[in-house]
């Protein structure tokens, strides 16, 4: 038992160790390479880091659950954009404009509902047709993006509401609004995955779907709930982010799915399902954001950023594998 716990710690600790390495590297390199005076490890900068991790982070949390299920969702970027459009556009509807600031929570509600509905569509298709989630969501990645464009042509959808912006920019106990949402969502989902029947079933299904079916778990509805959840979270991410920025381009959120998946895998969740953790995903998200921020801090140019981010991803994967090796006598398959 002791040995296993330690092994587990190492398994899940890789990403945190990597974060520490990143912090150390950028702090030191920053001293020499950065043209600005402020230190990288500045407290405010770390707070910003959390805040900036929120948009992809909230989505990645949902992606963790989907991937623990053994599915994947490639449509979250488009869901994010569509929810944002609903959020911003709904505030301009006449009846909404009439109710003043009450429009804000209502608009949030509409946006979140949009996310849930889009997620439900994916979930229903996966459930009822039995088509693999990868294909279903690859399709809806296109389809939802099409809806985004249909909504407002090629124009951005904008509604700048300063009350909303002030709320989104506010800091409570030092943490930004977005950070609160990120951490809150992480906490709730962590509870969901570790403490509830639904969460445990999610692991069981991803681990051995046939066993779960044989044991009488209703896999179809379970998938549906989780797709609705990730739809909700993609919309929540949009709500948090666009409350602050007030305008959405129809291209927004493109590639978010890939970044979210990357964060989840960096956090150690198995792509094949059945294994993973919400907290480690949070680590994955922070590690990526830290990398971006740090590279900017030391003045790396675009091509270097691309090159380095790509190679680092691979390096982390490699490290993680080395840490998890069982030793020389391991079966060589």
């Amino acid at each position, binding site marked *: 038992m002791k040995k296993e716990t330690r092994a587990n710690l190492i398994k899940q600790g890789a990403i945190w160790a990597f974060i520490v390495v990143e912090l150390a590297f950028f702090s030191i390199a920053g001293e020499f390479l950065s043209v600005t005076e402020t230190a990288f490890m500045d407290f405010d900068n770390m707070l910003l880091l959390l805040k*900036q991790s929120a948009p992809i982070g909230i989505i990645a949390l949902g992606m963790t659950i989907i991937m623990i299920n053994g599915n994947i969702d490639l449509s979250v970027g488009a869901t994010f954009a569509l929810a944002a459009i609903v959020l911003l556009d709904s505030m301009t509807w006449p009846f909404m404009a009439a109710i003043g600031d009450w429009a804000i929570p209502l608009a949030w509600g509409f946006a979140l509902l949009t996310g849930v509905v889009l997620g439900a569509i994916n979930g229903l298709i996966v459930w009822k047709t039995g088509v693999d989630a990868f294909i279903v969501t690859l399709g809806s990645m296109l389809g939802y993006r099409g809806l985004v464009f249909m909504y407002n042509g090629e124009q951005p959808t904008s509604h700048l509401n300063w009350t909303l912006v002030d709320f989104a920019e506010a800091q409570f106990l030092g943490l930004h609004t977005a950070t609160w949402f990120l951490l809150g969502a992480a906490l709730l989902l962590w509870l969901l995955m570790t403490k509830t029947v639904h969460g445990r079933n999610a692991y069981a299904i991803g681990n051995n779907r046939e066993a779960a079916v044989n044991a009488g778990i209703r896999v179809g509805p379970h998938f549906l709930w989780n797709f609705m959840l990730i739809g909700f979270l993609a919309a929540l991410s949009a709500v948090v982010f666009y409350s602050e920025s007030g305008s959405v381009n129809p*291209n927004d959120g493109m590639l978010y799915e890939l970044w979210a998946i990357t964060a989840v895998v960096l956090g150690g969740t198995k792509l094949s399902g059945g294994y993973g953790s919400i907290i480690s995903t949070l680590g994955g998200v922070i590690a990526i954001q830290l990398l971006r921020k740090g590279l900017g801090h030391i003045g790396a140019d*675009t091509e270097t950023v691309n090159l380095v981010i790509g190679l680092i991803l691979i390096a982390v994967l490699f490290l993680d594998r080395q840490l998890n090796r069982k030793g020389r006598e391991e079966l060589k398959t």
Partner: protein
Amino acid sequence: AFGEAHMDTYTIGITQNNVGVDSYQTTYEQAFIAAAEANDNVEVVVLDAGGDVARQIAQMEDLIQQEVDAIIIWPTNGEAVIPAVRKASQADIPVIVTNSNIAEQGFDFVASFSGPDNITQGSRSAEIMCDRFKELGIEDEAQIVQISGQPGYTTAIERAKGFEDRLPEVCPNVTLMETQPGDWNREKSQQVMEAFLVKYDDIDGVYAGDDNMGVGALNAAKAADRAEGITFVGATNFAVGYEAMAAGEYWGSIYQSPVDDAEAALQTAIDILNGEDVPFLNYFDTPKITQDNMDEFEKPVF
């Protein structure tokens, strides 16, 4: 010596839209860095948002946090960055918008805009097209198609708008049959044009949102042996466009230099930091270029 030198050195941060996406932006970046290096009094932090508005806002926050002296922003979305720009202005950091402007609501927080006028560019392209049709005597029957830039981008939208608004004013009888996006991509544009050629037997003109796409369309037409009868007009004269013009295959474009663009932005920032008076809308000129007057222009370097 370090400390002293620092006293008169400005640190200027820039966050660009999407550097990897085309050579205009890359050249802009290089020109910007070169201009900064030539000037002993500035240090620059160059960031690229990769087309992602969230990343750009994060970069704005980072620059504010790093306490740079001025921020230049090439907005990924002219409205979404307004709150971030406000934050900068609240932190007393002057913000200069470059290349494409932010929305009016944000003007209060911006020191100056420096860049081309995309709407005017669109109108000018319409004029080039119309003038050519008049020369050819087909201004009353000409049919054209449009290949626009990446959907959703301000530059794409503004150019299309400028073109579509101006064309009926100068050539009311020319019909714009269809518009499809070419995503600033030569290959995509070539595919779109191939489909247009199958679909329409008679195409007299093609307006492309930039020369990359224009040349893509030209390639498609050449492959179908129909390039002869078509007037190609683009924008942002790239080297490929210039060459095609020299070869007599491509009619006209808008001359816009990323080097001018970058240098103007940096200069505007420096002027503002030096407390000089700068106009709020600091457009640099982007003239028409056609086969007729191309000798007056140097071949673009990008």
